[in-house]
């Protein structure tokens, strides 16, 4: 391994990259767009309330107003009221659909009368059924609304029965040492996304393209070795990853007040990540016979990793069989490792992830150097 060769090749790679507006866009601007886009979509997640449209058939009775007050106190739902003069309980479901409202609640007539009658005489029990309409396609909002309404109803029942709450729920707290928002969890995922896509697509493309146009054949007649060619590119993408990660983390912090730990523990990931995917990209480009087939192979490798490694969604949300699939994807360990470093400060798990990624990287590196050919036979 000749470091002078690596340095010379590194300068060529760097100049080629820095003079390519498309590459620069994807390295410097796209990360900000990505963070901005996902941040705008998800930064309010957890604080946004579920809108519940109420049809109050009990004519604004005191008890129904108390019920609404308690619902508001949950901070989970925001109430809107349908006009009972224009909407009937039998038409309410279709009315909700026509007005694109996913959740609706009907307070039946006699709600106050039946409840106060029970308070005055416990033997006088005439249960009142609240009707909650939900949208199965919006499981999160539907679940939240159901929980809120059920919780307030249970409170009314407990009070009506003269009971006292023994077990209560303190205000919710987040996993980890700080209070995190979705954007905090998203940043390691998007940095991992960037570590995957930039080297992978670039290496797959140039390996096949340079072979096709004879540039690799030309280089095979110089003292530059395959390993040196690969190492110079790994070095470049490591540098680029530091810049991109810095931009993404900076954008997350400044635009969305993200809370992530920026420690030296992040450095190994910004080194081993590009190492892994440059080698994998070169390997994929090496087995492809044409630039067109290289693009297909690159996409087949990249897209499942992009979506199944915890980039945008936590792997724990997946069904068990899909979680098993995620655990064989190298990017999973990169993102999980960065999560451990940036959020949970779990150094032992991060170390395990690092060893896994390093081992896979070394295998890919050796395979890429062995299978890479300067020219078609």
């Amino acid at each position: 391994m000749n470091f002078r060769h690596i340095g010379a090749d590194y300068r060529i790679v760097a100049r080629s990259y820095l003079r390519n507006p498309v590459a620069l866009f994807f390295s410097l601007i796209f990360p900000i767009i990505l963070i901005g886009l996902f941040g705008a979509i998800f930064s309010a997640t957890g604080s946004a309330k579920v809108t519940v449209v109420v049809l109050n058939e009990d004519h604004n009775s005191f008890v129904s107003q108390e019920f609404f007050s308690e619902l508001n106190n949950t901070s989970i739902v925001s109430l809107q009221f349908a006009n009972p003069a224009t909407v009937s309980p039998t038409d309410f479901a279709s009315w909700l659909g026509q007005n694109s409202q996913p959740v609706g609640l009907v307070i039946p007539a006699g709600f106050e009368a039946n409840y106060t009658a029970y308070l005055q005489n416990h033997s006088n029990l005439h249960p009142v059924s609240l009707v909650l309409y939900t949208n199965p396609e919006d499981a999160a909002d539907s679940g939240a609304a159901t929980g809120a309404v059920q919780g307030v109803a249970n409170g009314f029942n407990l009070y009506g029965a003269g009971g006292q709450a023994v077990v209560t729920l303190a205000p919710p707290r987040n996993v980890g040492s700080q209070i995190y928002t979705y954007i905090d969890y998203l940043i390691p995922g998007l940095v991992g996304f960037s570590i995957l896509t930039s080297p992978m697509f670039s290496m797959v493309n140039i390996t096949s393209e340079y072979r096709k146009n004879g540039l690799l054949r030309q280089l095979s007649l110089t003292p530059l070795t395959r390993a040196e060619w690969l190492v110079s590119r790994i070095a470049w993408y490591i540098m680029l990853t530091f810049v991109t990660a810095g931009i993404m983390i900076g954008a997350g912090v400044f635009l969305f007040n993200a809370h992530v730990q920026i420690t030296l523990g992040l450095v190994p990931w910004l080194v081993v990540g590009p190492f892994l995917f440059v080698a994998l990209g070169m390997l994929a480009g090496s087995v492809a016979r044409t630039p067109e087939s290289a693009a297909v192979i690159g996409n087949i490798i990249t897209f499942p990793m992009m979506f199944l490694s915890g980039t945008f969604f936590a792997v724990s949300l997946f069904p068990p069989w899909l979680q098993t699939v995620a655990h064989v994807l190298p990017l999973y360990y990169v993102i999980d490792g960065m999560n451990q470093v940036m959020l949970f400060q779990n150094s032992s798990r991060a170390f395990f992830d690092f060893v896994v990624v390093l081992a896979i990287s070394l295998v890919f590196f050796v395979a890429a150097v062995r299978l890479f050919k300067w020219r078609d036979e």
Partner: protein
Amino acid sequence: MAGAIEVHGLVKRYGALAAVDGIDFTVPAGSVFAFLGPNGAGKTTTVEILEGLRGRTEGTVSVLGLDPWTQGDELHRKIGVIPQDFHFFEKITPLEAIHYYRSLFHTRVDPQELLRVVELSDKANARFDTLSGGQKQKLGLALALTNDPEICFLDEPTTGLDPHARRSIWEVIRTQKREGRTVFLTTHYLEEAEILADQVAIINHGKIIASGTPSEIIRVHGQTERMRIEGSPELARYLAEKLGIAVAATDGHIEIELAGKRDALRILSAIDASGLPWESFSTRQDTLEDVFVRLVGAMDEGALQSGGSP
């Protein structure tokens, strides 16, 4: 002169197909050697074997005393190669490209001087993707010379270039020869080979069908020098009777084979003495291109005939 390249009994087979079928040739050090042949004749395969890019099936090959296949790394430090349709990193300038090669080969060549040699100084800082075809080839040539090679392999270096660009590349090739380098040239332009080459080999269907200096090949395989006169059939008959030689007359043209230079003087004296009208005269000898077309054409025709016979 010692052989910079020596090839004996070289065979390269791809399955049942013999792309190179037992060829022998020697390229003297310090000479320009042109390797000619139609498409698919085995030129590129042979060149790639010599460059160490491809293995061989049989035979011995020595380039600068090295076996290209087993000693390729050592050989590549001593040779320069410009491939057909040279490509480089698109955003890199010629000056940066030479610096790059200089670092890879650990040489101290002056990049500006090299660019001057290939007449590319004015484009030193232009990016590769903005260069014309001729300028790209010149950069390829400059890179091939960066390691001060003992042999330059130039694979169709002027294909697709305008006449001016071709001539400037020819001048670089002449300079290399003057400086004692061996040049192995493959080209489609027979005129180019005739002008530049000391030695020529013509390959077809994997076999060398002619070799030697351009004039030797023309002498051995070409037709005799001829004089062509624009004149009447009467003049043709007069010359035949007066000189006692074979005279062909067609469409106002008279053609006479010249056995020697003095024949031309005798014919001109006879024309002058005849008093018959004539317009102009010229002498013509076969070019390398005429010989090439005739040899390759005859071989292909023969192959067709033998292939077509029962």
